[in-house]
Each structure stands twice: as structure tokens, then as C-alpha cells.
């Protein structure tokens, strides 16, 4: 079972995403700010990270860069209410940038696509 680290400071949204992603068959672990995300990435070694940007303590962009510096190749999906961070150079480190919507289809499709791509790359390496 793939583990997803969900980084999100809004409790209601955490509940929603947790449920929806569990239905898709993922194990979901959470963090509510950027610093906790770094710690939980170390502890749970997730297969993918869904990252909000505006959060207390440390924002999602800095947290993403720091996670990437410790775990190479980990797919990261930015999931934010704001579209303008796409122009931010550092946000280009993410594998996907999704503007939050009540329909989670885009997010779910992206997660599936990135996890499949990752597995394919891992298989290619072992072959």
C-alpha cells in the first residue's frame, strides 16, 4: 500500500482528503505545517507528498525543498488555493501544481499517475 504524506493546516480539509484518499486505497499520514512535514517525511518515508503552501511555521515551498534535499525523487504535488505561486521558481520543484477544488478528481489522477511513473522508474532501475 502506498503511503501519502498529506501536508495541510486546515483540519476540515485534512478530514476530507484523508477519507477520499483512503477510499482510493492509500495509507494517509498527515502534517499540519512545513516543519512537521519534514519530520514526518523522515519518519514515514512516504511514496508521495501532497503539499499545501500557506501554512504556519514554515511554508510549503521551503518545506518541499528541504524534503527534496533529504529524499531524492520523491514525487511532490502542490495543492493550494492560490494559482499565482506557479510563477514562483521554487514551485517548479514540484511534480504537479494543483489549484484546490471541491472535485478531487484532478488531484487523485495526478497522484495515481506520479506513483505509477515512480514504480515504472524503479522497475527500470532494477531491470
Amino acid at each position: 500500500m502506498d503511503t501519502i504524506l498529506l501536508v495541510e493546516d486546515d483540519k476540515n480539509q485534512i478530514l476530507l482528503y484523508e477519507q477520499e484518499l483512503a477510499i482510493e486505497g492509500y495509507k494517509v499520514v498527515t502534517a499540519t505545517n512545513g516543519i512537521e512535514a519534514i519530520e514526518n517525511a523522515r519518519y514515514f518515508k512516504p511514496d508521495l507528498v501532497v503539499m499545501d503552501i500557506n501554512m504556519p511555521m514554515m511554508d510549503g515551498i521551503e518545506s518541499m525543498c528541504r524534503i527534496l534535499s533529504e529524499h531524492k525523487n520523491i514525487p511532490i504535488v502542490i495543492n493550494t488555493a492560490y494559482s499565482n505561486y506557479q510563477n514562483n521558481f521554487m514551485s517548479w520543484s514540484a511534480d504537479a501544481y494543483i489549484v484546490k477544488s471541491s472535485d478531487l478528481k484532478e488531484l487523485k489522477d495526478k497522484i495515481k499517475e506520479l506513483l505509477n511513473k515512480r514504480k515504472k522508474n524503479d522497475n527500470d532501475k532494477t531491470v
Partner: protein
Amino acid sequence: MIRPFDHTLYRKVLVMLLAGGKGERLYPLTRDRAKPAVPFGGVYRIIDFTLSNCINSGLRKICVLTQYKSYSLDRHLRVGWNIFNSELDEFIENIPPQKRTSEMWYLGTSDAVYQNIYVLERERPEMVLILAGDHIYKMDYSELINYHILNKADLTVPCIEAPLEDASRFGVVGVDNNSRIIDFDEKPLNPKPLPTNKNVALVSMGIYLFNTEVLVRRIIENAKNDTNRDFGKNIIPTMIQKDRVLSFVFNGNGHSTANYWRDIGTLDAYWEANIDLVKKNPDFDLFDDTWPIRTYNKQYPPAKYSFENEKNGMIKDALISNGCLINDASIGKSIISPNVTIGSESSVMGSIIMEGVRIGKNVKIKNAIIDKHVTIPDGMKIGYDLQNDGKQFTVTEKGVVVAHKEMHLI
């Protein structure tokens, strides 16, 4: 040559000057300072040549990325290069690792830029010129920039022809008929020669002009996928496969003899590049008023020579700086930095004497580099018995004797 001056040029280009290398091969000159801060040519520091190129090319937005032993370099930039006007949007900024993206120092040349993507974000330049703080040359970067724009390149790599036997020290470049780089080998064991001349290879000068967006994409990809973070080893070889990467053959822009460019890699190369300056017609001319080299100079009185006995003293082929007191001494083929005293009946031949050195009476120095504030006692000989010199000094492969900064001699 008179050329049209694009007054908007400097706004479009941000310079990132890499000054973070350890410079281990220049030890002991780098014992207390970063390589770009090593004195050169009497009054300069190595970094002054690249910074002067920027000024003379109209570039006024400069980030100097520092890391090891940066105090001396910081101070030099602060006291010597505080000439930019922030109200005109000009700057020179000294940027050490800020740990914005990780807990690491700069892991390589491209990582130094990656860790400062934030700066690119804020400045949003169209192009980024990556320069090195340890090269001696005169180059008009505006010609490079025009070439880059006219040829719609993503990346332009200035190159120079090097003798085949030296080429394995550099990135060796293979180009097609349209100057597009199709091959890039960083420090290959068997460098490929030019098709037109078997004795030379085209090598990268280690400086790069990027379109900002391409640069950012490629260094992010590299940071995510690779553990090595080097422009020559990682970024360029990947880019030649998917981006438009052109070579720009450096021809000296008419400012120097035979496209002079030196990467001051070793103590011997350092000694040679310095001593070359004192020739009647040097390859690198400091007295070229079309390309002034600026630096920081402390105020000293004029150099003073007093010869009581005409037979004792003679000066031939030398650069002598302000503040020097030379009494009845002989100097040949040497560089004497500011505030040096040389006592009577002493001789200094083929040597680089740095600031504040005190040379006593009847001292003989040959083929040596004496770093700052060394006092050489009366009667001492340096450079005449290399075996003996090796006990207290560094002696290079070619027999140059090096005394480190503030060394105590008895």
C-alpha cells in the same frame, strides 16, 4: 572598436560570480583567504579582473557567491567595490550559503545557484551570467550577450582553443558547423582535438550565459535527480541533448594578446601569470586604458628608491607599488606590492613580494612568492637551495619557493 552601447543591457542580465572554491592547489596562499581574494599583480586581487570585466561590459547587478574563508574577500568587496548605486538599481551582493533549501553548504557550482533561486525570483533577470572568481582575462561580456540573443540560444558557453596536452584540465567541447555544442566532456583523460587542427582542442572557459527560465528548470531537475551538482559535469552534458547550447569562441576582443585567459590553478601558474606582467610587451597589459582594472588601494606615499652607492642598486623589469622603500637593492623580473621595504645590498629576482613584507639587509631572494607581512631577517637566502628551503617553505614542482602570510622566519 566602437560598438553600439545597449544601455538597457545591464538590467536584463544578473551576474552570479562563483567564489566559493577552496583553492587547495594554491595553498599556502589560500591558507587564510578564498582563492578569488589572493593578491595578484601587486595591487589587485584575482577577483578584480572578473569584476572589472563586468563594469567595463556595463553589467551592474552582481551576486558574489562565497563560502570558504570569505572574510578577506568580503572585506575587499566592501572597501574596494562599494561603488554601485542602489538608486540606479545597481548592486554587488555577497551571498554565503543561507540554508534556504537544505542544511547543506554549496555542494557544487550549480548547487550554489540552485540555493539562490530565491535571488533569481526577486530579480527576474532575462539572462544569468555565471562567472568564476579565479580567472585572469579581459572579456567584453556584452559581445557574448549580443551573440546569445542574436542566435536565440538557451545557453552559450564561451570557449577557447587550448593545446591538446592542457585540455584535460578543462571541459572539452565538440561543435557542429553552426557552433552548436554536440559534445561536452568535463576533464577527459583523452581530449578530442579540433577536426581542423590536431594539436588543439576547444575548451570551455567555465563561464556560462543562460536564459533564466531554462537555467532554473535544469538546475531544479539536477537537484532532484542527481547527487552531483556541477555545471560542467552534470548540467551542460544534459542540456546539449535537449536545449540549444552554443559555443562562443573568445578572441580577446582586441584587448589582449592572443586571447589571453588564465585559470589560476596552481602555484606555478600563479607565479608565471604574475611574472608575465613585467615583460616589456606582456600578454596581459595592465596599462590598457580602454579596459581599466580597478581595485582597492590603501593610501601610501609614493614608492621611494634611494641609492647611496650606484653600484649596489638596479631595477629592471618590475612592477613597484606605492609605499615601498628600496635602499641600495637590486630588483629584477619581480612584482613588489605596496608598503614593502627592501634593505641595502639585497636582491629580489623573479619573485612576487606581497604587501607589508620587510626584507632586511643583504637578503637574496630568487623565484619566490612571499605572502603578506613576512619579515625576512638580514642575510637570509631564499630560492638558492631548494632542499634547505623545503624544510620551512612550500616548494613547487617548478621550484618556486612560497612563504605563507605572516610567517615567522629566523
